[in-house]
């Protein structure tokens, strides 16, 4: 098991290394190159030349890449040009990462807590009205553009009804920061109102972000339960006269949830992309909003950090999922 984890971690380093090379090439291929990207199209030739020298762009490519890599390894990706002009790009990532983790956590929690039970129920009552309706809803859920759903929710629950805050992570209240996970901070410092306020800000974005993972988890659970219900060992369990509780828990669910674990891992990657749209609609100050802003400002320093970080997160989450899978499935564990 340990060897497996080490091998996967080494693979991850390889992936990130190649990704850094790709991002480096990507930067060279940008319209007008890095200089125009930083200075914009209206810069004077003199200032362009100065910046070219300053950035070392007149040196051979491999020297440039080496320097780029050395800087990247120390977390130095340069200063932001558009999101928060002048601020260190890596610092922007540090500032904003907890917000996105908090949001993603609640989103995936909603998706799991709704998707697995509903998927199970739909499978048990296959072809019933409930089953057909929930399948149709899950399919429509995938077809709705995430940012449009965000607008809809914001329009009804925040603007029209005023039940929930329109944007941001927390109202302008005095709250102590410990971990920068605002809900957690509030709970840890016993500032209940701060925790509650942060939680209220999370509800709409988390619901928005949870729709696609919910739909996917729901459908995988449903299909998986249907398949397991058909397995011979469920019939064996029935032939032993076991109670429904044991048959459902030990024999059906324990097997049916195996593919769901992998799916949850894969959905985390999708969450990062979804966060770009969701966070920018709700002005939620996470890395998603920073990415959206970086895209529209063409802020390449920030883009580099955040794309690298997204890839790293995705790879790590999937490593965790694979380890978890091995823990749960004896066929993998005891090979």
């Amino acid at each position, binding site marked *: 098991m340990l060897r497996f984890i080490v091998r996967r971690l080494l693979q991850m380093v390889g992936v990130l290394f190649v990704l850094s090379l790709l991002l480096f090439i990507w930067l060279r291929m940008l319209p007008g190159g890095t200089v125009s990207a930083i200075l914009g199209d209206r810069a004077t030739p003199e200032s362009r030349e100065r910046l070219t020298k300053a950035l070392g762009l007149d040196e051979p490519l491999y020297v440039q890449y080496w320097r780029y890599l050395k800087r990247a390894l120390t977390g130095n990706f340069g200063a932001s040009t558009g999101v928060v002009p002048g601020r260190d790009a890596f610092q922007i990532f540090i500032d904003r990462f907890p917000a996105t983790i908090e949001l993603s956590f609640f989103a995936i929690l909603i998706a799991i807590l709704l998707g697995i039970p509903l998927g199970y129920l739909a499978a048990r009552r296959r072809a019933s009205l409930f089953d057909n309706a929930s399948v149709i809803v899950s399919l429509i859920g995938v077809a709705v553009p995430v940012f449009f759903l965000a607008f809809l929710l914001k329009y009804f629950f925040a603007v029209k009804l005023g039940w929930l805050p329109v944007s941001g992570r927390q109202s302008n209240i005095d709250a102590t920061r410990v971990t920068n996970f605002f809900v957690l901070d509030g709970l840890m410092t016993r500032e209940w109102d701060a925790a509650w306020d942060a939680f209220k800000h999370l509800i709409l974005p988390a619901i928005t972000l949870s729709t696609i993972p919910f739909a996917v988890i729901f459908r995988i659970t449903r299909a998986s339960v249907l398949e397991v219900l058909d397995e*011979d060992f469920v019939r064996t369990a029935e032939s032993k*006269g076991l109670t429904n509780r044991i048959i459902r828990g*030990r024999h059906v669910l324990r097997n049916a949830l195996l593919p769901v674990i992998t799916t949850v891992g894969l959905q985390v990657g999708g969450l990062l992309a979804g966060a770009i749209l969701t966070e920018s609609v709700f002005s939620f100050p996470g890395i998603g909003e920073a990415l959206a802003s970086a895209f529209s400002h063409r802020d390449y320093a920030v883009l580099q950090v955040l794309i690298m970080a997204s890839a790293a997160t995705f790879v790590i989450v999937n490593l965790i999922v694979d380890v978890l899978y091995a823990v749960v499935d004896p066929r993998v564990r005891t090979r």
Partner: protein
Amino acid sequence: MTTRAYAADTRSGQALLSVRDLSVVFQRHGEQPFAAVDGVSFEVRPGQTVGLVGESGSGKSVTSLAIMGLLPARGNRVTGVADFDGTDLLKLSSGDMRDRRGKDLGMIFQDPLSSLNPVVPIGVQVTEVLERHKGMSRKAAMPKAREMLDKVGIPDPDRRLKDYPHQLSGGMRQRALIAMALACEPRVLIADEPTTALDVTIQAQILQLLGDLVRDSGTALIMITHDLGVVAGLCDEVNVMYGGRIVERGLRHDLFAAPRHPYTHGLLGSIPRLDGQRGEPLIPIPGSVADNLPWDHACAFAPRCFQPIDVCRSQTPGFVEDGASALRCHNPVGSPHGHTAQPDHAEVNDQ
């Protein structure tokens, strides 16, 4: 092929499970109802082994699932009686039936790998039956489970209790399944093709084991198979099924010595025999179950029969019982008609 000394005794005495006029009709939405089992009756006494033999599609597995109450809740209709020691199993509520399964009635299935839960240790899969029906705690049930594994001939049972199904060999898995089915000492055991998925050498071991267990404990065994070799070695009484009905019944020796139904005759003719003449051809039964006529106005087997007479296509043959044997045929092998009517395969091919 050892003859059991007391086999004669088991023929008399009270029936433990008596199936009478069992029918199972499948009705799919918008399709014609289909009778998979059509008026099947048979009995099994303690310590007796009864075989249900037939090709796939003959209704033998559906019969066993119906007795166990394991048919899906919807899409079928079960009628008839399955009298178990005075209780009609078919009339029991699903909860009461659940109490009986595993305790009074055990069942083992064809494919031991897919019939075992891959993510639960063997030990738990044995103890859960004891926990359910004997009210034992898992801890208390473990020694009993170990004893069961030992009894079914699994070496090193302590280690195997913790193993998962994929860590066992095919024969071992089937032994584990038998241990689970027998853990609560059920009085009836139904074995649905228990050896089909196994190697030939393992098959013999498993059959031997089943035979020993039945003899030692006095369990009634219903053996479902398409393999007459299994029947020859194990069963006291054989019921041959075709098209959802029993077409011939007889004691093992009688049936093998002088099969009377052309279908039984055909089944015996299509397996190789060690004592047969050298160069004696194996004769397959022509056609498939798809050629069946409906039982309503004919004999379902008529299109595949080697000696059909006119009445076979116009009249349902009755089930004529005569002591331990019974037959459903207009023109049995060895009857006066049998010699006059020629095997007419040309007619079959025209169908």
